[in-house]
C-alpha cells in the first residue's frame, strides 16, 4: 500500500510542480507598457523572439502588462518585476527612477531621448462630423461632450491636456491666464474620466458616449480600423503636440534576474528597421527617416510643438500641471 502511494506521488508531484512553476529554462522578459500599444507589442514580441532565436539560439518569451501609464509606473514602483518599461511619457519612468529601480539619467541611454517612435494627439468624431468640430477652439462650445482619460493616471491624457494648453497659449499670444481659462472650459465639457486611454476609446466607441474623443494618433487609427470607416472619422487640429513615449530597461530587475542582455537587445530592436517598420504599421510615427518616408502619406500633416518648446521640461510641466494641487486639480471639479 505505501509503495503504491509513493508511486502515485512520484508521478503526481512532478506533474503538479510542472503545472505550478513555469518553465525556467528559457528567458522571460516582462514589458510593462501603457494602453494603446497592445497590438503593436504583440507583433513586435513575435518578431523579436524570432530574431533572438536566430541570433543566439535561445528562446525568449515575452510577457505584456498594459494599463494607464501612471498606474503601470506605480505597479513597477510597488514591485512589479518589469524587465523593461515602455510608457507614455518620461515623468512616469522618472518616478520609477526616483524609487531607485533605475538610474536617473535613463533617458540618455538610448537614442532620441529613449523614444524609438513618436505620436501626436488628434480628434476622433462620429461619421460625418455632425458637430462640425475642426479645431481645439470648437471643444469649449457649451453642451459639447469631450472624452479624455484622467491625466492623473493616463499618459495620453497628459499629452491631451498639454496639447490643448499649447494651442490656447498660442491663440492668446502667450497669456497663461487665458490658456488656463480655455482648458478649464474644455474640462467642463468632459463628462467622465477613464483611467487609461483605451478605457476612453471604449467609452467613446462602444458606449457611444460623447461627441469627440481626444486620442493618440495611433489609437485613433486603430479605433477606426476596428470599428469601420462608416462610424468614425479623424479630425486633425491645426496644431498639436509631439508625443515622445519613452522606453527603458529597469536595472534593478534585469540585474537580479540576469536578463540584461536580452532586455537591452529588445529595446534596441525597437530602433532597428524591422522594429521601426512594425511601429509604422501600427500607426506610430517612426524615427527612421527611410521608414517614415515609406509611410509618409498615412500620417496627416500638422504643426507640432514639443514639450521643451512650450513647457521647458517634462519635469517642470509635471510639477506645474499634474502633481497634487497642480493646475489640473485647481481647474477640474468633478460633476460640475
Amino acid at each position, binding site marked *: 500500500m505505501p509503495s503504491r502511494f509513493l508511486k502515485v506521488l512520484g508521478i503526481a508531484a512532478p506533474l503538479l510542480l510542472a503545472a505550478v512553476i513555469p518553465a525556467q529554462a528559457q528567458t522571460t522578459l*516582462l514589458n510593462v507598457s501603457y494602453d494603446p500599444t497592445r497590438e503593436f507589442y504583440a507583433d513586435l514580441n513575435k518578431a523579436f523572439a524570432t530574431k533572438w532565436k536566430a541570433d543566439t539560439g535561445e528562446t525568449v518569451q515575452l510577457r505584456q502588462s*498594459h494599463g494607464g501609464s501612471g498606474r503601470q509606473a506605480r505597479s513597477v514602483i*510597488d514591485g512589479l518585476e518589469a524587465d523593461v518599461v515602455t510608457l507614455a511619457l518620461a515623468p512616469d519612468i522618472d518616478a520609477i527612477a526616483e524609487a531607485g529601480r533605475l538610474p536617473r539619467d535613463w533617458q540618455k541611454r538610448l537614442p532620441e531621448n529613449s523614444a524609438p517612435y513618436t505620436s501626436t494627439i488628434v480628434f476622433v468624431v462620429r461619421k460625418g462630423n455632425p458637430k462640425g468640430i475642426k479645431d481645439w477652439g470648437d471643444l469649449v462650445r457649451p453642451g459639447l461632450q469631450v472624452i479624455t482619460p484622467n491625466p492623473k493616471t493616463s499618459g495620453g491624457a497628459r499629452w491631451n491636456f498639454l496639447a490643448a494648453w499649447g494651442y490656447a497659449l498660442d491663440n492668446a499670444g502667450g497669456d497663461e491666464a487665458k490658456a488656463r481659462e480655455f482648458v478649464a472650459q474644455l474640462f467642463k465639457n468632459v463628462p467622465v474620466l477613464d483611467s487609461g486611454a483605451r478605457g476612453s476609446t471604449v467609452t467613446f466607441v462602444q458606449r457611444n458616449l460623447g461627441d469627440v474623443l481626444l486620442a493618440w494618433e495611433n489609437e485613433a487609427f486603430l479605433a477606426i480600423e476596428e470599428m469601420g470607416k462608416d462610424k468614425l472619422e479623424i479630425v486633425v487640429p491645426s496644431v498639436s503636440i509631439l508625443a515622445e513615449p519613452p522606453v527603458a530597461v529597469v536595472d534593478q530587475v534585469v540585474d537580479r534576474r540576469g536578463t540584461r542582455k536580452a532586455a537591452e537587445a529588445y529595446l534596441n530592436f525597437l530602433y532597428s528597421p524591422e522594429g521601426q517598420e512594425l511601429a509604422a504599421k501600427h500607426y506610430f510615427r517612426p524615427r527612421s527617416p527611410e521608414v517614415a518616408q515609406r509611410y509618409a502619406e498615412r500620417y496627416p500633416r500638422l504643426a507640432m510643438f514639443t514639450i521643451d518648446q512650450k513647457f521647458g521640461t517634462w519635469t517642470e510641466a509635471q510639477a506645474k500641471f499634474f502633481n497634487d494641487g497642480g493646475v489640473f486639480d485647481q481647474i477640474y471639479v468633478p460633476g460640475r
Partner: protein
Amino acid sequence: MAVEASLDTAQDAGRLPARPAPRPPARPATGERPAIRLALTGIALAFLVVFLFLPLVAVFAQALAGGWQTYLEALQEPDAQAAIRLTLLTAAIAVPLNCVFGICAAWCIARFEFTGKSLLTTLIDLPFSVSPVISGMVYVLLFGLHGLLGPWLREHDIQIVFALPGIVLATIFVTFPFVARELIPLMQEQGSEEEEAALVMGASGWQTFLWVTLPKIRWGLLYGVLLCNARAMGEFGAVAVVSGHIRGETTTMPLHVEILYNEYNMVAAFAVASLLALLALVTLTAKALLEWRYADELAATRRH
C-alpha cells in the same frame, strides 16, 4: 445577492398584514387583494428578467455571435487557458483555507464567552463592508516593494504582490466572511448539548467534532463553501490591484475578460465571461439541488 434581497423584500411586502381591513371578512388576515399580489409578483418577475435574465442571455448571445467554432477557439487560446487555470487554482487554495477558518471562527464565537467576542464578530464582517479595492491595496502596502515587509521579502527573493500569492491573499480576504457568517448563527442556535453529551460519554474533542458537530453543520457549511467559491472565482476589484495584469500569468478570468474587452475582442471577452457565468450557474444549481433534496434537514437546521 441583490436579487435574493429584492425577492425577500417582495415577499416581506406580500406578507405584511398592513392593518387588517374589516371587509371582506372571508379573506385571511395576512392575505392581500389578488390585484396587489399580482402586481407584486409582476414587479418581482419583471425585475428579475430585466436585471438578471436579459444580461445573462446577452452574455451567451454575444459569446456565440461568431458560432461555436470561434467560441471554442477563444476558450482554447493559451492566455485564456492560463486565466482559467489561475482562477481555479486560486479558488482551490482560498476556499479550503476559508472553510477551516470559518469553522474555527464560528466554533469559538458560538461556543465560548470571552472578552472581545463582539469585536471578533465585527472583524469577520470587515471584508463585506470594505471596498475590494482597499482590500487589494492593503496587501500592496504590506508586501509591495516599499511596503512594510517589502525589503525583507525582496532580500529573500519572495514575490507576493503581482504574483500568485498576492492574488490568493486578496481572494481569501474578500471571501473569508462567507463560511463563518453562514455557520455562526447556525451553531449559536444549535447549542452544545449534544457535544456535551458526547464528551460525557468519553469521546475525545476530535471525535466529538467529527461525529457530532460536523454532521450538524454540514448543510450550512456546504452552503457557505458554495457562496465562497462563487465569489472567489468572480472577484475583480481586489485582485485587479495586486495582479499586475501580466497577460497569461497573473490575470484571472474576470481580469482576462476586461483585457479582451479593451482589445475590441468582444466574442472572446464574452466567451470567457460566459464560462464564468456558467461556473456561477453550476454553483447555484448545486445549491438549489441541495436545498430541494434536503429541504427537511435544512429547514430543521437553518433559520434564514
